[in-house]
């Protein structure tokens, strides 16, 4: 029997889980990624991955907590599916070698995160995402997944409404490549990088896959729901995990007084901090009372990051923080089998809206989501009919598009425009929004789009042209910003992370 040929775009947690599962089910699997497999956003997840696996917890409570936080914008069936699959997901990760922290009885230790009614997040110190990602990568090598690195997604090959592969930019040569498949899984990550320095995300987390999918006929869902993480370091926006509060950290105002329930849902905590900052106060995350031994055992990365990026040792002093964009609850619309509006195109992870986070995601549910839904995506991708792989298509249009980006006569520096886009998104499409602010943001973005013709890539060298990559990322950011603002304008009343004044 002929093998199913599956292309997976993105090598973060979702992409790698899908790759392992699809390969184990017998497919021929190729993973395409923008950098290297272990460079992705997943490594930045710190706090943990949720599963009701201790006697003080239950799947029902996990479902209830998730639905409560989602404020009616999640699909209860999808939430139930995810929460019920959680114990098995942990068991699988444990079996393939993830070194989850253990308690004294050698069972997987769990910590409390915001909005949870029990200690539910399994963790590996505060390097949970890093250790999961690297373990997945090692397993990909074991099962023989093919990786083609330094490929940026440019287009989908869609014929008669069926996705038959993808077109990428080979970053090493700036030439176009095409990869043909029976089914394609997008696992390209979220879009919070378009908030730039006002985001915990990597600067290249620009929603490229979402932008490409929407342009090719997929639908978006809930793009206005952007989660702002309450505690990023003030000057660098480097993430300090919710586990710092879960383990007993306090939020303090300028008078060193606590002012909110630290373990409330993220949207509420972020707004409480934002209000203090609007009043001109500084806000701090204080873990000094936890003690050096505890911090080094459970929060080693937080200590390292605070020392490195804020020059503050959290053992001695509270860390200055601010809320910044962190997670895209919205994404590509899909059904309960991860199938998008385009046949044979599936989605997994942050680029998708699996209807489990709704208006506000709980800490610890994103790593869980990517394991559960990447598994489902892989299973369904294998069910796609094994029709003949199409022959190479004519890439003239794509080539003309790439060529048009080189503009030695560019008069506008797109890096400056990118900074304007970042700050506009934070101030106007941020923690607190209003119709006036959103309308203004839309105008700024539309005017920026008109200026694109005067921007361009100055560097004509075709070898590893990172300016070309960054310009493409900027164009995707600009396109998605408009989509996000339009979605936000349509939702006139407040709901979770989308708060309207």
């Amino acid at each position, binding site marked *: 029997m002929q093998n199913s040929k599956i292309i997976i775009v993105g090598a973060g947690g979702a992409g790698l889980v899908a790759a392992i599962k699809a390969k184990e089910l017998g497919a021929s699997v190729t993973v395409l990624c923008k*950098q*290297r497999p*272990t*460079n*992705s*956003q997943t*490594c*930045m997840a710190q706090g943990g991955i949720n599963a009701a696996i201790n006697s003080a917890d239950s799947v029902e409570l996990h479902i209830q907590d998730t639905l409560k936080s989602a404020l009616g914008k999640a699909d209860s069936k999808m939430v139930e599916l995810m929460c019920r699959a959680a114990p098995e997901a942990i068991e699988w990760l*444990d*079996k*393939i*070698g993830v*070194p*989850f*922290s*253990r*308690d*004294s009885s*050698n*069972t997987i230790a769990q910590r409390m995160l915001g909005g949870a009614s029990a200690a539910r997040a399994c963790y*590996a*110190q505060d*390097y949970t995402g*890093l*250790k999961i990602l*690297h*373990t997945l990568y*090692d*397993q990909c*090598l*074991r099962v023989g997944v093919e990786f083609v*690195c330094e490929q940026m997604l440019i287009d989908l090959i869609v014929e008669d409404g069926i996705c038959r592969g993808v077109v990428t930019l080979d970053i*090493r040569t700036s030439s176009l490549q095409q990869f043909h498949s029976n089914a394609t899984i997008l696992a390209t990550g979220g879009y919070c990088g378009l908030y730039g320095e006002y985001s915990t995300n*990597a*600067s*290249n987390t620009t929603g490229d896959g979402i932008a490409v999918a929407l342009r090719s006929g997929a639908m978006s869902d809930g793009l206005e729901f952007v989660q702002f993480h309450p505690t990023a370091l003030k000057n*660098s926006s*480097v*993430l300090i995990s919710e586990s710092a509060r879960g383990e007993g950290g306090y939020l303090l105002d300028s008078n060193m007084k606590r002012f909110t329930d630290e373990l409330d849902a993220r949207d509420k905590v972020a707004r409480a901090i934002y209000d203090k900052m609007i009043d001109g106060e500084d806000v701090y995350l204080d873990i000094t009372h936890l003690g050096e031994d505890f911090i080094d055992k459970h929060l080693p*990365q937080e200590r*390292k*990051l605070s020392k*490195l*990026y804020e020059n503050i040792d959290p053992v001695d002093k509270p860390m200055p923080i601010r809320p910044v964009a962190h997670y895209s609850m919205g994404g590509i619309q899909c059904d309960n089998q991860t199938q998008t509006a385009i046949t044979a195109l599936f989605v997994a992870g942050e680029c998708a809206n699996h209807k489990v986070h709704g208006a506000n995601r709980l800490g610890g549910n994103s790593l869980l989501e990517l394991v559960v839904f990447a598994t489902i995506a892989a299973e369904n991708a294998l069910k796609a009919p094994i029709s003949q792989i199409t022959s190479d298509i004519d890439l003239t249009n794509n080539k003309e598009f790439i060529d048009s980006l080189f503009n030695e006569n560019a008069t506008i*520096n797109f*890096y*400056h425009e990118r900074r304007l886009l970042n700050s506009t998104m934070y101030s106007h499409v941020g923690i607190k929004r209003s119709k006036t602010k959103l309308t203004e943001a839309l105008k700024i973005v539309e005017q920026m789009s008109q200026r694109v013709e005067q921007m361009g*890539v*100055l*560097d004509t*060298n075709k*070898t*590893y*042209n*990172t*300016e070309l990559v*960054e310009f493409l990322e900027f164009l995707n950011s600009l396109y998605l910003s408009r989509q996000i603002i339009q979605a936000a304008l349509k939702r006139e009343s407040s709901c979770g992370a989308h708060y309207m004044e």
Partner: protein
Amino acid sequence: MTIYIKRDNLREYEIPLENPTLLQALKYIKSELDRTLSYNSSCGSSVCGSCAVRVDSKERLACAHRLVGGEVIEPLRNTKVIRDLVVDSHYPLSFNQKVQTWLIPQSDKIELTQESEAATKLQSNCILCMACFSACPVYEVNHNFIAPFTFTRALRYLKDARCKDEIPILSLLQTDGIYECTLCGECSAACPQDISSKDDVVALRNLSAMSGFVDPNFLSSFGGGLEF
């Protein structure tokens, strides 16, 4: 401040930023001074491993290094430079495949113990930034020498209670591997995660000896002695 970047030749750049990280300086150069500079970066918080370079001949993560001025920035060593500060990662990373640094999942459930988890905590902090690979002097004489991070990864899985059979990985470390290491410690000094691949090599030698593998250098020294 002024910094120097080794490209086709050594280029000088003036950075008007206060106490910047090297990554902030690179971003400044890219957007304000010279669009043709190529480098890689991603998370900006020391955990994705994509921005390692050499600063005054020492491996550093660009996002974690504070500049004082006058530094010379170079790409990582021991692998092909693709452009400016971007190097080929395919060759160094191929050593993980070669040594099969992964866990083989077992059908029967084996519990990772608290002790075993603690024993591999440091090794599993590796971010695959390739700093250790660049710092290693053995590549000057042996291109097939297993990457330092691969030793660390091998030890991570060998010390895991869920690893049922240590022999396959150990046997792949015997050639161009643990005995070719000079234990100079350059890899340990280079690691941004404070991992010592050198110490891991020593641990792997002990594990090998306990599993009946023999140090070829030890054999040949005896062989020489028997001849006269």
